[in-house]
């Protein structure tokens, strides 16, 4: 009996470090200029999955991601770290999906990958910041969910015990499988790429990527089927298109405003005694400090 772990991950623009290159002249963010990365908390989830794999004989890790064709990049990143296979669900009809529509598509893919034991993903992505897809997917699969997980205490083929990081403390929680777990950024950092695995998987591609390649890889793929990254579209998932994209999304964006750097008139001081003396005087005199 194979123990199947499905890691849900997302390729996201790196919103954490918006440097000068990504800032437009009007002070707004040029999203297209941000590098695309493996969502950080999904990397924490992958690390926990890799640790669980070492605890269970015959366990396998599948990385599942929904996105445009280039999201296959994060599947390769997972393979370089120890995942066993990757699936990309991709289709124009997914565009405009909010978390409800996204979790619908993802749950269909997971059902197609049944039987599975553990679904694990980051708590939230750094672009939407909602933390909704994990719990919504769990609900659609009708399995329990444990969120804000910081570490795995123990695991066997039947049961898992995890530590949750709450606002003012921790909880140790136990559950049988199947379960969906979301992982908090305070969990152990993901291990780096393994050079042997890079050698093994560097030519892994989806069928769409192969079409854009200059070289012909058919020979390579016939000998090494593990290089094939599966791609599923709306038909492969038997998805009801009304539940996808804009029509499947109950939340609508009415308006987006860019956060613009407001420059304020400020008074400058050095750290020398004279300056600090006059600063404190001014603050006291104007009753800012009592």
């Amino acid at each position, binding site marked *: 009996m194979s123990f199947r772990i499905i890691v849900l991950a997302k390729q996201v623009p790196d919103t954490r470090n918006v440097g000068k290159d990504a800032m437009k002249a009007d002070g*707004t963010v040029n999203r297209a200029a941000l590098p695309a990365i493996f969502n950080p908390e999904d990397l924490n989830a992958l690390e926990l999955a890799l640790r669980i794999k070492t605890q269970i004989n015959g366990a396998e890790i599948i990385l599942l991601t929904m996105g445009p064709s280039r999201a296959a990049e994060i599947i390769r990143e997972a393979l370089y770290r120890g995942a066993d296979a990757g699936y990309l669900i991709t289709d124009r009809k997914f565009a405009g999906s909010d978390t409800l529509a996204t979790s619908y598509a993802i749950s269909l893919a997971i059902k197609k990958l049944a039987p599975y034991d553990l679904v694990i993903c980051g708590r939230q992505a750094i672009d939407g910041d909602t933390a909704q897809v994990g719990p919504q997917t769990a609900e659609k699969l009708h399995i329990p969910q444990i*969120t804000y997980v910081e570490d795995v205490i123990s695991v066997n083929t039947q049961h898992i015990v995890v530590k949750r990081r709450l606002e*003012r403390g921790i909880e140790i929680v*136990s559950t049988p499988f199947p379960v969906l777990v979301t992982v908090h950024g305070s969990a152990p950092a993901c291990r780096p790429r393994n050079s042997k695995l890079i050698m093994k998987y560097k030519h892994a591609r989806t069928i769409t990527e192969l079409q854009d390649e200059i070289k012909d890889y058919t020979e390579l793929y016939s000998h090494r089927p593990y290089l094939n990254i599966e791609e599923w579209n709306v038909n492969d998932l038997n998805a009801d298109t009304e539940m996808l994209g804009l029509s499947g999304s109950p939340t609508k964006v009415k308006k987006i405003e860019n956060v613009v*750097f407001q420059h304020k008139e400020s008074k400058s001081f050095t*750290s020398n005694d004279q300056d*600090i003396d006059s600063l404190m005087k001014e603050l006291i005199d104007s009753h800012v400090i009592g």
Partner: protein
Amino acid sequence: MNNIFIYCEITEEGSIADVSLELLTKGRKLANQLSSKLEAVVFGNNISNLESQLFPFGVDIIHYANDSRLFPYTTLPHSSILMNLIREEKPQIVLFGATSVGRDLAPRIASALRCGLTADCTSLEIGNYDETRTQKEYQNLLYQIRPAFGGNIIATIVNPETRPQMATVREGVMKKEILSLTYKGSIKKIDVGKWIKPEDFIVKIIERHVESQKINIKSAQIIIAGGYGVGSKENFKLLFELADLIGAQVGASRAAVDSGLIEHERQIGQTGVTVRPKLYIACGISGAVQHRAGMDQSAQIISINTDPNAPINQIADYVVIGSVLDVIPKMIKYYKKNSK
């Protein structure tokens, strides 16, 4: 039906959490705007003084599920009861705190009810919406306003077609305010057995170490916040010393908390607390968008930083170029000298 529901969280001491009281305050205002009722949803174990805790906020009905298995919070029993309660009562709006409880429960409910949910709202308003695609006009929708894209944009979200309209809101975003100590509503007891199944208890809490909230920097008038630039736990003592002197609370940026310099309860910013003091002194804080989101509404801001180009300097009223270790002792010295 068509009322405003607030899902209320219970603290370790068994009382209603501040974030829920803040949402009740906002909920009362929304209910007035929409000419509907404010209803509180409470699932817990033998909570004392429920009426006196909640009615003063203008709560018309308390829906109370009392069962020892409902505290501490676990997902399945709470979601089984809440989803059925919502199906029965049909509120138009349901609000939750954006906490480890609210962000665990609300999406599960939204998925079951196939309704829209917006997380971590920083503002809620009532307004109209014209859908260009279908040419439909909607009145009196809940505007769910929130930062996204790492805090680089502010989005206004609406749920035109689905009900209830749901949102989670962070603690400290709304202000807690009693409406009237004599306000009277009623309590409806929920028959827990009707909606809970044995499978709901499959996840078990084996151990739990949660502390009561000792530190509350939300309502501080003056906050001295330390960033990564403070450098060490030792150096944070300087901030505490100045804070004691001028009657301030000590806060921190996420970088300082993540580096173990100070406890998480003092974290200010998108994943911490939102504060609106009359004076915010930022010490060695660069001022990333996520931090600014938690303090940019401070009336006056002082930034102490060795880097003249630190982003926070652009929103500061006073910029002191220097090291925290050098400047804070001088501020202490000259405060003592200049104040009588």
